[in-house]
C-alpha cells in the first residue's frame, strides 16, 4: 500500500469478527503502522482473503478443523 509492504497478523478467533491486523512497514523499515483488517479487505485479492479467514478458522476455530501438520 503506497509502496509499503503489508503483512496480515492473526490476533484472535474467527468468532471475534475479523480479528486480524494489517501491519504496514515503510520501505526503509523506519516506520510501522497497524490497521484493523476489517476495513482493509479491498486491499487484498480474493484468494488472500480466503487464506486469511481459513487460517483463522484452522488456528482459532474452536477445534472444528484440525490444523495442518505444518503449523
Amino acid at each position, binding site marked *: 500500500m503506497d509502496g509499503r509492504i503489508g503483512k496480515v497478523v492473526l490476533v484472535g478467533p474467527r468468532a471475534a469478527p475479523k480479528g486480524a491486523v494489517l501491519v504496514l512497514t515503510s520501505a526503509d523499515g523506519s516506520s510501522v503502522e497497524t490497521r484493523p483488517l476489517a476495513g482493509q479487505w479491498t486491499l487484498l485479492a480474493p484468494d488472500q482473503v480466503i487464506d486469511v479467514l481459513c487460517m483463522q*478458522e484452522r488456528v482459532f476455530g474452536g477445534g472444528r478443523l484440525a490444523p495442518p501438520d505444518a503449523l
Partner: protein
Amino acid sequence: MSKQYDIETLLDGIITLPSLPHVVERVDELLGDPDRSLGEVGKVIATDPSIALKTLRLVNSAYYGLQNRVTSVEHAVALLGAKVIKNLVLTATVFDTFKTTTSQMLRHSVACGTAMGVLARRHAPPLSVTTEEAFVFGLLHDIGKIIIEEFLPQECAEARALCVAQRMPEYQAERIILGIDHAELGSRLAVKWKLPPAIIEAIAGHHDLAKCQDPSMLGFAATLCIADYICVASGFSASESAIALVPDSLWSAVSFTSLDLPDVLDAFFGSLSSLDELASVAGAEA
C-alpha cells in the same frame, strides 16, 4: 517410466469408465417421464434396501435439518422432491462404483459440495441451481482422480510424488506424467453418465476455464474452482499436493470481490458440522 497418453487411447482399453448406478439411471428415467408419479420414484429406490437405507441416512443427516425423522423413501421423496432425492441417491451410490476411494478424498468431495452449496445460495448473480444440485458439482468434481488411482496406480503414485517434490498442484503433475488430468477424465465420466451439461463443463473447467466448451457454463466452472480452493485452504484437501491458485480471470468471471468472501466463509464453516456424517454415509458400502 511414465507414458504420455491421450484421452481416447486411455478410454479405448486401459480405462473402463464405470456405469451410472442402476437405481440412479432408473430414477432419472422416471423424472423425465411426465406420466410417472413421485411415488414410483420412491418405490424404485426402495427396491435396493441398502441404497434406500443410505438415502434415508442422508435425508436424516444434520445437513438437511429436518425436524422429524423420515423412515421411508416414499416419505422422503414427498418431503424433499424427486430431484433432491435423485441427488441423494447419487451421493449414496457414486463412490460405491470405485474401490480406491479414500476417506481424505471423501471429506474433500463432501466439503467441496458444501462450499458449492454455500456459493450457489449466497452468490449474486445466483447460479441457476439449487443448493442440493450445487452439492453434486462439488461431490463429483475430483472423480477423475479416483479413476486415475484405480486404473493407473503407478502413474498416480508418480504424479503425487512429483506434487510433493515440486510443490505443484495435482492436475499439473498429472499432465506431466500422464498427458491428461483428472478434470478431463472426470468430465468424460460425467458425459457417459449423462449428467447435466453444467456439471460436465464445470468438472472439465474447474482447473482451467479454457477447457469449458460452452461459454455460458464458465460461471459454474469458476465457482467450482473457488469452492475447491476454499476447501483446500481450510485444510480439506484430497491429497498432499500444493494448492492450485485461482487466476484473476476466474474471479472476474463470477464477479467475486474480496468483500463478498467473509460472509461466504462464515456460512461455509457453519455448514461443516454435518461433513463427517455425510462423508461417512457416502463412503459406507451399500
